[in-house]
């Protein structure tokens, strides 16, 4: 059968929900980042699929920039992660409740 836009959108949605489940589940900060990456990739798939099916290049441009942003985010995020680990000695979210109010 021919693969239409719907297939890709469903796949993207499934991947996004997997990513969301990971984000909600993970208590380790680093693994939280992994799950976030999954979500970003899922949206990229959606963008690319829609772009190709409509013949509009804007989707792919957007996906490109998302990749760039993700890269910068990982860089800064890991830097901050290192600092947190140096200060608190743990990466467990349940123990990092300093903002409790």
């Amino acid at each position, binding site marked *: 059968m021919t693969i239409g836009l719907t297939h890709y959108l469903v796949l993207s949605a499934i991947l996004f929900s997997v990513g969301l489940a990971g*984000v*909600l589940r*993970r208590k380790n900060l680093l693994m939280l980042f992994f799950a976030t990456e999954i979500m970003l990739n899922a949206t990229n798939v959606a963008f690319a699929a829609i772009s190709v099916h409509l013949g509009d290049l804007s989707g792919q441009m957007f996906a490109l920039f998302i990749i760039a942003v993700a890269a910068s985010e990982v860089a800064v995020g890991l830097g901050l992660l290192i600092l947190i680990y140096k200060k608190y000695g743990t990466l467990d*979210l*349940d123990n*990092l*409740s300093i*903002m*409790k*109010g």
Partner: protein
Amino acid sequence: MENYVYIALFAPLVSSLFAALFAQKPKIQLVGIITSLLIGIAFVSSFTLLLHLEETGKAISVNLMDWIVVGDMDIKFGFTVDQVTAVMMSVVTLVSTVVHVYSNYYMESDKGFNRFFSYLSAFVFSMMILVMSDNFLGLFIGWEGVGVCSWLLIGFWYHRKDETRDVNPSISPSWAANEAFIMNRIADLGMLVGIFLIYWNLGTLKYTEVFAHLGDLSHTTLIWIGITLFIGAMGKSAQFPLHTWLANAMEGPTPVSALIHAATMVTAGVYLVIRANPLYDMIPEVGYGIAVVGTFVAIFAASMALVNRDLKRIIAYSTLSQLGYMFAAAGLGAYWVALFHLAAHAFFKALLFIGAGNVMHAMHDELDIFKMGGLKKVMGWTFLYMGLASLALSGIYPLAGFFSKDTILEVAFNEHTYGIWFVLWLTAGLTAFYSFRQVFLVFLGDERYHEIGAHPHEAKTYALWAMAPLAILAVIFGFFKEDFVEFVTKLLPAYEMSEHTEEMVWILTIITTLIAVTGIVIAYIKYAKGLKRDINFEKTNWLYKLLYNQYYIPVIYNRVFAKPYKELSEIAWKEIDMQVVDATVDGIAKFVEKSGDVSRKAQNGNLSSYLKWMAVGLVFITVIAAIAVAVK
């Protein structure tokens, strides 16, 4: 000329505010002087306006400001001085001035001296608004204003404790004040309905416009308006069944009774009927009803005054009775007669009350006339004044009461309402009797006051001088009747007696004078030599007891209306207010507090839980977005 209107209107207000500045301080004599002066200025302005109106015959209108301008409704604060208003203004300010000056003497040792003058002047201001306003709503404002000031003044000694009815029939000043105000309020409901009906049907409340368009309304509507307006008048003028407050209002200081419950506030009801004469001319059946009520009250009150022992209450019942006369005249269509009697009555009734005030002061606030007697020797002037006033009240020629009262009887005869004529004629006799019973018991006969150790003395000279204008007017006012008629009938319908009555006039006059003199003679025979009491008679005779206890009406009102209402109020308070309303409000507060407490736990600093909440929010928003898109 407009300036005089403003002066007459606002001088009392200034006076009241000035006195109010010192209300909490101990007595300052200057307050009494300045307030009396200002009211005197108001009187001069009113009288000037009266003279001006006599010359030119044109009414003066001023419009202070737009008051209610909402949609179609445009009611202004307007004042008109026409013939009726000018008469009322002059009477009110004259009596007010006399009372103010007299109060300087009467209240001289009272702690609330300044407060008293403030209230008194405020009352005069409200009364001026009432009579000068050119629309029904301004009238109503003045109406309410005099009600409030009356409440303040009756309850002037509010700190006196409640007593049982057999010790003090009025229970206490604050109770009497509440009773007066509440009864007035009940009547005001009727008046408000009347005003609403007028506005609903005619779209305006200005007198001139309303009376011009009365012909457009159906007869039933007119009847309803007439009845409801009269209900309002019934409260203010203490007609049956809303009459018990007037006798109890004697708890207030005597100058209050002189001003409010003789001359001004209680005549507001009569003023309303006179003012609305175009309306009542179109519904003569309601007018007849009013006349019947008035007549009934006349004899009803006179009967209660026959046996009463309280100095002021007798005069209060007398006022009630004379108000009945006024309503009888107005109801039968003789509006200028009612107005004339209103003015004359104001003078001699105020004089009577002030004289009673002198007696009270002399007897250290003792009110029981059985404990007085022979005061003529010590209080000659007061005896003269009260005697003159009583003669005027009884309708003896040539005093003022003769001209006014006899005219009312003539009117009753002219209208072929012979029943009314007979009752009023009988009441005239009763009036003469009880007035002179009072005078003789107080001033002639044996000096019973020695038993209670009183040392009476005459009032101060300036107080006696203050009473003089009233006495003079009580004597000569009758001779102004022709001028009065000519003046007032420019506005009011002229009431002409028919030919038949013209012939009967002499006979009627003689019969009336005869019964009045008879009453005086009987009183003289019984009481001039001294008091002879038959205690057994007082205790056993049913008629005596009925009259003495005011037909037991206050007791009935208490049992039928006051007690159940109090129980209802307690239920409403304890059951409804405390348990339902308060509980609901507390419940809302508790709910907010608890939900806040629960929501606080969401801030636990845990990033994972925050992410979960974000996901919830995301789902929520997407659902709403989907629904919104689907609905479109």
